């Protein structure tokens, strides 16, 4: 699905014309440049590779620098490939894509970000377990997970059992977020709801597979 690379700016509140108050995430979307165009003839599928956030040439490594040189664009910090479903949409190398080019207000988008890392967390925080009783002579099992399975049969712990471990810092996609507003000149889009990740975190914004109601 065609989309854009961007950054999370933060969250705020806006008001709709019918008086409702809407929480929105402010995203800087693009502008991105097309670095590579993949066609069914050459590559077996149709896609475009977009670059976001220009960097100094000395910041990019040599193999990537060659890739950007071939495209004739400046080096970018982030590269991402988007499949092109609609063949009628034509893209050229070096073409700049802005938020207003591919998104419209009222449309739904899917946003992918990397959630904030929480480190190694116990089951109470990671999986919302209740923990043990806090009174009645309880001594040392306040936040313990409890039983993790039966004994002699099956003599092992079943796979996928929820336990303590690393939490956060994983790719999270939120689907079907409505675009409330696009500020064309600033490449800013306002999306209803929350998106994983810190302020300044990189976000992939795609046209949603869900349809607007």
């Amino acid at each position: 699905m065609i989309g854009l690379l961007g950054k999370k700016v933060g969250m705020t509140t806006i008001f709709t014309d019918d008086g409702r108050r809407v929480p929105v995430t402010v995203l800087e979307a693009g502008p991105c440049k097309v670095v590579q165009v993949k066609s069914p003839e050459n590559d077996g599928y149709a896609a475009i590779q977009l670059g976001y956030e220009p960097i100094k040439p000395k910041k990019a490594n040599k193999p990537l620098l060659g890739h950007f040189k071939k495209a004739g664009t400046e080096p970018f910090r982030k590269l991402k490939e988007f499949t092109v479903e609609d063949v009628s949409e034509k893209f050229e190398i070096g073409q700049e894509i802005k938020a207003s080019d591919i998104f419209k207000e009222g449309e739904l988008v899917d946003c992918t970000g990397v959630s904030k890392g929480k480190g190694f967390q116990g089951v109470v925080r990671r999986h919302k377990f209740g923990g043990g009783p806090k009174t009645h002579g309880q001594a040392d099992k306040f936040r313990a997970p409890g039983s993790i399975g039966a004994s002699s049969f099956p003599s092992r712990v079943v796979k996928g059992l929820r336990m303590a471990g690393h939490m956060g810092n994983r790719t999270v996609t939120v689907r079907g977020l409505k675009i409330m507003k696009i500020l064309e000149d600033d490449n800013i889009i306002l999306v209803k709801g929350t998106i994983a990740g810190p302020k300044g975190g990189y976000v992939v914004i795609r046209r949603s597979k869900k349809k607007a109601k």
Partner: protein
Amino acid sequence: MSDEIIKKVQSEYLKKDIPQFKAGDTVRVHLRIVESGKTRTQVFQGIVISRRGSGTDETFTVRKIAAGHIGVERIFPLHAKTIEKIEVVSRGKVRRAKLTYLRGRVGKAAKVKELRTAKKSSK
């Protein structure tokens, strides 16, 4: 940088005709209410007991004693479009920003003294 962008986003939604008021003041809040297709205005009058937040997120809490001596509090977003007008009825003389202590008080003790400015007292 990111704060600037958010301020710019908010700027369109901020009202400019909001009167100055703070905790302790008595206000009349005129609300636009849409009921079965008809629009009417409802007034909520009471003491402002808190203001919090900034930009479009700013809200204020109004407390009034309704019929039957029941305390009613409503929290309004300051810049909400449903608020037609905010009228300041009187200024209160208070020494804190949040008047949560009013909740535990009944009758005369729950009153806020009126602030008398120099002009008024010279009369």
